[in-house]
């Protein structure tokens, strides 16, 4: 039985929440609880709901689901939405999910998703957030991976007033691979926090974190990534990269890429950069006759493109590509 969501969140004194004072933001809201209603397309045959309103999706053994399963949750003004979803992808199954978060007004969405990936199963999970700029969204995703499981995820955070995306990946089975990518596009007074913790519990696992942020206006971006390699997780390959484009003097970016390693035969590295656009490529493009705006645009598109390329499915990639281009305009 998965742990249900707590109705309150930690304060700043928890190291983990150092940069995101969610309770201060929530204190300004007056919200009433509402039962969340997910719109799920293509999920009917897999779905059950238990007494506690937890939604269960079970993808049976060796089942290959061709069409991506579409999950959508709409936020409403003045509402508090707490929702638990449990997804079991059984051995050898293959499935993709597209999660869309939309809404209008001031609300709080508190979402917990537990994803259990069986041996040899493959899961693609793509999340698109197009929320209201006043809302608060806290989303916790726990992924448990068995032997040789594959997990590929992309999160595009277009707009939410205050967003916290948390990933906890437990690599319990040997030989599993997790590939996480994310793009946060922040402007106005938005706060975007991406917190990732990958636990390498079993040996021969591979994980990659690739997160980028573009910050404009007064926005505040946070990336906290952690690779935790357990004592027995020899031959781990862990990779972490965070590139951040700071485009406004009023914006702030806080990065904390963490390594916690207890095994000696591992390959772990991380890198991070924060700053504005590099001058050299800019100069190159200008010298080829592009005006500053076009050159800038091209460079930002290239910056973003690297993340979107992490999605192998062309249709899904096109969908995300469109949304990102819309934002960049």
């Amino acid at each position: 039985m998965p742990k249900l969501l707590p109705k309150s969140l930690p304060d700043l004194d928890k190291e983990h929440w150092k940069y995101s004072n969610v309770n201060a933001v929530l204190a300004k809201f007056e919200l009433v609880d509402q039962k969340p209603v997910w719109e799920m397309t293509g999920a009917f045959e897999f779905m059950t709901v238990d007494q506690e309103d937890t939604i269960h999706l079970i993808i049976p053994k060796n089942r290959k689901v061709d069409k991506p399963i579409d999950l959508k949750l709409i936020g409403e003004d003045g509402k508090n939405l707490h929702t638990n979803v449990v997804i079991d992808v059984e051995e050898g199954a293959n499935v993709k999910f597209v999660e869309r978060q939309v809404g209008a007004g001031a609300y709080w969405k508190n979402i917990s998703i537990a994803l259990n990936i069986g041996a040899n199963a493959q899961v693609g999970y793509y999340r698109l957030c197009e929320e209201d700029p006043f809302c608060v969204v806290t989303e916790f995703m726990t992924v448990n991976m068995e032997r040789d499981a594959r997990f590929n995820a992309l999160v595009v955070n277009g707009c939410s007033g205050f967003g916290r995306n948390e990933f906890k990946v437990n690599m319990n089975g040997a030989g599993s691979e997790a590939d996480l990518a994310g793009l946060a596009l922040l402007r106005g007074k938005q706060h975007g926090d991406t917190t990732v913790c990958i636990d390498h519990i079993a040996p021969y696992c591979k994980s990659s974190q690739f997160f980028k942020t573009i910050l404009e206006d007064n926005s505040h971006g946070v990336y906290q990534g952690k690779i935790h390699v357990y004592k027995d997780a020899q031959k781990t390959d862990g990779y972490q990269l965070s590139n951040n484009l700071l485009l406004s003097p009023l914006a702030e970016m806080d990065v904390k890429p963490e390594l916690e390693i207890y095994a000696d035969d591992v390959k772990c590295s991380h890198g991070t950069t924060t700053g504005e656009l590099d001058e050299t490529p800019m100069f190159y493009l200008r010298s080829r006759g592009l005006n500053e705006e076009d050159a800038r645009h091209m460079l930002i598109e290239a910056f973003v493109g690297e993340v979107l390329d992490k999605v192998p499915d062309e249709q899904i990639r096109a969908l995300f590509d469109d949304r990102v281009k819309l934002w960049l305009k």
Partner: protein
Amino acid sequence: MSDPLSVAEQVEALNKYEAGFVTDIESDKAPKGLNEDIIRFISAKKQEPEWLLEWRLKAFERWKKMPEPNWAKIHHPPIDYQDAYYYAAPKPKLNSIDEVDPALLETFEKLGVPMRERARLAGVAVDVVFDSVSVATTFKEKLSEVGVIFCSISEAVRNHPELVKKYMGSVVPYTDNKHACLNSAVFTDGSFVYIPEGVRCPMELSTYFRINEMNTGQFERTLIIAEKGAYVSYLEGCTAPMRDENQLHAAVVELIAHEDAEIKYSTVQNWYPGDKEGKGGIYNFVTKRGMCAGARSKISWTQVETGSAITWKYPSCILKGDDSQGEFYSVAITNNFQQADTGTKMIHMGARTKSRIIAKTISAGKSDSTYRGLVKILAGAEGARNYTQCDSLLIGDQCGAHTVPYIESKNPKARLEHEATTSKISDDQLFYCQQRGLSEEEAVALIVNGFCKEVMQNLPMEFAVEAQKLVAISLEGSVG
């Protein structure tokens, strides 16, 4: 990787801790415990002015209310502050080196610090802190010729109260953290350095710290001030004898660099790390911070940390002046049950400020070491630049190496880069060295020294040799 033999070898390596002996000098100490009376006793012993006593008492009041910092990745039983002595001083009051107790001199001999020879040959002025009172200072005359003040902090309080009053607590206020606050209340000695305007200090200044009295925590306070255009290089080396109980050490170091001044601060720390079961050893909770107050000033920290049961230490730079520079070079080696949580803070305030962080972490045995560093760019730091590189090397499969960088940027014109890697000594490297005729241990020492080279290069000559030897000794027997 590690075979059963290596454990036995590690024990042997531990027994090689060269500085494990106790000198028998009767000390003049205050009763155990920490209260206002003890602080008054220390202050009276030091013949301190009223303002300093008041400052100590204020710090003590604050200390009682402060929580212990708990964010570091270190574990230890709660510290019983009442179960330690806060003042211990060797009995004789000395004017010249000839009057020093022979037993004391012998201790230094064993440590490889033959004061006169070393001072004469190497041109090093050594201000020796033995327990809490500085017993001898050499080369004082030569330094005073150029106007450099190099003395113990208690002397500075007596002779240069205006400087001490102006600068003490200006970089590390007593409210900073619990350990610095404790130091402010009970500090007994340490060094004071003042380099006047335009003077390049003619020699490397050096202090050797020793903890000698049973259960005496050492609370040094070091204050270094470099006036406009001055330069000084300061060395700090530490060794302590074998001890069963944990000894608390909470030092505070403050550096102030004015316009165009440069301070280079190097540390080799080799305190008793505890035995193979993790029993005993020093708790090393140090607050070190430098203020680049003037434009184009520079502060450089270099440290080689091989000792202590627990190291909690973050030498930092506040880059306030425009174009000022901060550097941090660190090698931290942990073995057996040692724990180290060390790193730096670079706070960029001025325009075009630059900082560079090179941290090398080596873990062996069952130890844990963490690099924890903060790079903070404030809104005014136009064109600031930071480069950080953290590399960890794991030896054996029982140890841990962690990297926790915090990078906070508020200025788009600032450029920040951070890189970190974790690896082990590759079999290829070992094989290559061994087929060239080196033994496995020699090969490991060679590879580790190569791994640390970037940092070692920044140590002054005298220290570099000692540090390289230390690296080899600390790691002996850790590879199977």
